[in-house]
C-alpha cells in the first residue's frame, strides 16, 4: 500500500478487493456512496451494493435483515446520522438481536468541520459504549484501517467502524500486529503516555516528538478499539509512566478518556491524568484542523498540556 490516503479511501479500497472474491459481502448505503468513496465499489461489484435512500433507520434495519440471511453487511452512512438517528436500530436490530452488521460511520468526529454540529459525531463512542454487544473501532492510519476492515470481516458479531476523511500519515509502530481489543504501541516511552484514538493518534505522536526534544520520553498508544478497552495497556501505561493523557475526536463525556478514568479509579490507580477532547460547550466553528488546534488536539497543544500536567498535579 502506498499513499498515504484517507482512512475512508483505504476502507473503500479494502472492501472492493474483498468483495470481488466474496459475493456475500454487501454494502448498504443511504445516498452515501459518494461520501463513502464507494463509487469504485459500485462499479466493480454492482450487485453487491444496496441503496436505501436517505433513511438511516431503514439502512440499519435492512442491514440486520440481510445479515440474518447470511450476508456480510457494511451499513455505511455519515457517523453523525447513523449513530444518532438510527441508534435504536443499532441497539435493537443489531446488538440486542445479535446480527453481525458492520456499522460504518464515515466522516466521523468533526471531519465535516464547518458544516457544523448537525454533521459532527462527538457522541458516538459514548452512545455505543453504553450498548451491549458491539465492538467500537476508530483506526488511526491506513494500516489500522485495512486491518480493521479485515478483522470486521472475520468477526461474526456487531462492530462499529469509524472513519474520518483526512489523509492520514503512516504511523510508525513498535509491533505490526493488529488485534481488535489490543492497543497498538506507536512509540515507547516512560515519562508520560498518550492514549489516543482515531485521527488524534497522529497529533499525539507529533507531541511526543516535540516533548522528546525537551527530554521527555513519551509513550503513544493507538486505542483503535475503544470497546472492549485494552485495560492491561491502560494500567501498564499508568504503572510505568504515572502520567496519562487521553486524546479523542469526541466529547470528553463518555468516550475513551472517561473509560480510562473509570478503569484507573476502580483499580486504585492515582496518576496524573487529563482527558483531551471536545468540551461540553457549543462547538466552535471551523475546519477539522482549526477545531483540533482550538481544542488543543495538535502536536503543540498536546505538548503544552503534557507540560502543565507534569508540573501541576491538579491539571
Amino acid at each position, binding site marked *: 500500500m502506498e499513499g498515504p490516503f484517507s482512512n475512508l479511501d483505504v476502507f473503500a479500497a479494502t472492501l472492493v478487493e474483498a468483495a470481488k472474491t466474496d459475493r456475500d459481502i454487501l454494502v448498504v448505503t443511504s445516498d452515501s456512496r459518494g461520501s463513502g468513496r464507494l463509487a469504485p465499489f459500485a462499479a466493480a461489484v454492482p450487485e453487491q451494493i444496496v441503496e436505501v435512500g436517505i433513511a438511516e433507520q431503514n439502512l440499519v434495519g435492512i442491514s440486520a435483515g440481510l445479515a440474518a440471511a447470511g450476508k456480510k453487511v457494511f451499513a455505511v452512512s455519515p457517523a453523525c446520522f447513523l449513530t444518532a438517528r438510527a441508534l435504536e436500530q443499532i441497539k435493537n436490530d443489531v446488538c440486542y*438481536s445479535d446480527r453481525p452488521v458492520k456499522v460504518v460511520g464515515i466522516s466521523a468526529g468533526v471531519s465535516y468541520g464547518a458544516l457544523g454540529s448537525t454533521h459532527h459525531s462527538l457522541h458516538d463512542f459514548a452512545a455505543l459504549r453504553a450498548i451491549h454487544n458491539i465492538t467500537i473501532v476508530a483506526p488511526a492510519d491506513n494500516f489500522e484501517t485495512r486491518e480493521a476492515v479485515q478483522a470486521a470481516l472475520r468477526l461474526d458479531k456487531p462492530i462499529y467502524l469509524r472513519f474520518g476523511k483526512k489523509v492520514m500519515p503512516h504511523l510508525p509502530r513498535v509491533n505490526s500486529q493488529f488485534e481488535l481489543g489490543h492497543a497498538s504501541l506507536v512509540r515507547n516511552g516512560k515519562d508520560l503516555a498518550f492514549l489516543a484514538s482515531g485521527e488524534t493518534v497522529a497529533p499525539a505522536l507529533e507531541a511526543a516528538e516535540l516533548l522528546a526534544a525537551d527530554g521527555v520520553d513519551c509513550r503513544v498508544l493507538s486505542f483503535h478499539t475503544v470497546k472492549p478497552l485494552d485495560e492491561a495497556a491502560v494500567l501498564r501505561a499508568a504503572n510505568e509512566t504515572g502520567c496519562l493523557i487521553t486524546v479523542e475526536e469526541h466529547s470528553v463525556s463518555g468516550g475513551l478518556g472517561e473509560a480510562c478514568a473509570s478503569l484507573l479509579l476502580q483499580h486504585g490507580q492515582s496518576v496524573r491524568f487529563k482527558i483531551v477532547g471536545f468540551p461540553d460547550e457549543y462547538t466552535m466553528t471551523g475546519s477539522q484542523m482549526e477545531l483540533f488546534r482550538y481544542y488543543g488536539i495538535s502536536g503543540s497543544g498536546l505538548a503544552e498540556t503534557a507540560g502543565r500536567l507534569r508540573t501541576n498535579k491538579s491539571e
Partner: protein
Amino acid sequence: MHKHAFPMDPSLNLQQLKLKSIQYRKTVLSIIKHGGAGHTGGSLSSIDILNVLYNRILRLSPVTFRDPNRDRFVQSKGHSVEALYTVLADRGFFPRSELDTLNRFGSHFIGHPTRHVNGVEQNTGALGHGLSFAVGSALAAKIDRKDYRVFALLGDGELAEGSNWEAAMTAGHYRLDNLAVVIDRNGLQITGPTEEVVRLEPLHLKFEAFGFAVRECDGNSIPDLLAHLESVPFVTGQPSLLLAKTRKGYGISFMENSVRWHHRVPTDQEFEQAILELEKAEASVA
C-alpha cells in the same frame, strides 16, 4: 418441492382451524393471567392471523427453523407476544410448559419476542422496526435467487413510526413480491381510536402509493385470511399488503373493541367468564 421440504399440517381443515383459534385464545388468557401481565387486546385481535400463517401458510416448522430456505415471519408488533408464544408452542417450537414461565425472573419468555425463544426470527418490541428487517430478509432472497417468502405482522398504531414508511418505500422500490405485510387493523391504540390519536387513513391508498398490492379482509375470519394469504403475492412484482380488519379483544364479549383491555390482566371473575364464553364458542364450532 416446498410442500415436501417444509411439511405443514394440511390435515387441519377449516373447522379445526377455527377450534385452534378458540384454544389459542384460552391459552393467551391463561398465560397472561398466570404471568400477571400481557397485551391482551392485541394478542386476541391478531391470533387468527398467526393461526392461519403458522398452520397453513408458512413453509416453516421446528425442524426447518434454521434452514436458509424457510419462510420467515417477523412480528413487528412485539407486544402481542403472548399470541406468538401460544402458536409457537402449539407448533412444537418448545414445550407448552415453558409458557408458564412468562414474565418470571430469568425466563426467556418476556413481554416482547427475543431469539432466545425458539421460533422467533428477530427481537422486536420497539415499534416500527420489524418491516425494515423483513425488507432486508426479502431482499437477501432476491439477491440469492432463493424462493422463500417473508411475512411481517404490524400493528396499526405503530404505523405512526416513520421508519415503517422508509421501509415501505424500499419494499416498493425493489419490487419485493416475496414480502407480505399483514396489518392488524384493530383501530385502537393505548390512548384510544387510531383515527383520533393521529389519523392513519386512507391506509389502502397510502400503501398503494408506496408500491404495494393492497387487499382488505376480515382479520378475525379464518376463511377470509386463508383466501388472501394463500394467494400472495397479490400481484407479481409488488410487495403484498393485507389490511386485516380485526377487533381488539376479539372473542371475548367484554374485551372486544375496548381500549381498556390493551394490556389489562383479567380478574379471577373476568377470566372465568372469558373461558366460559370460549367454551361456548368451542361447542358451537364442534
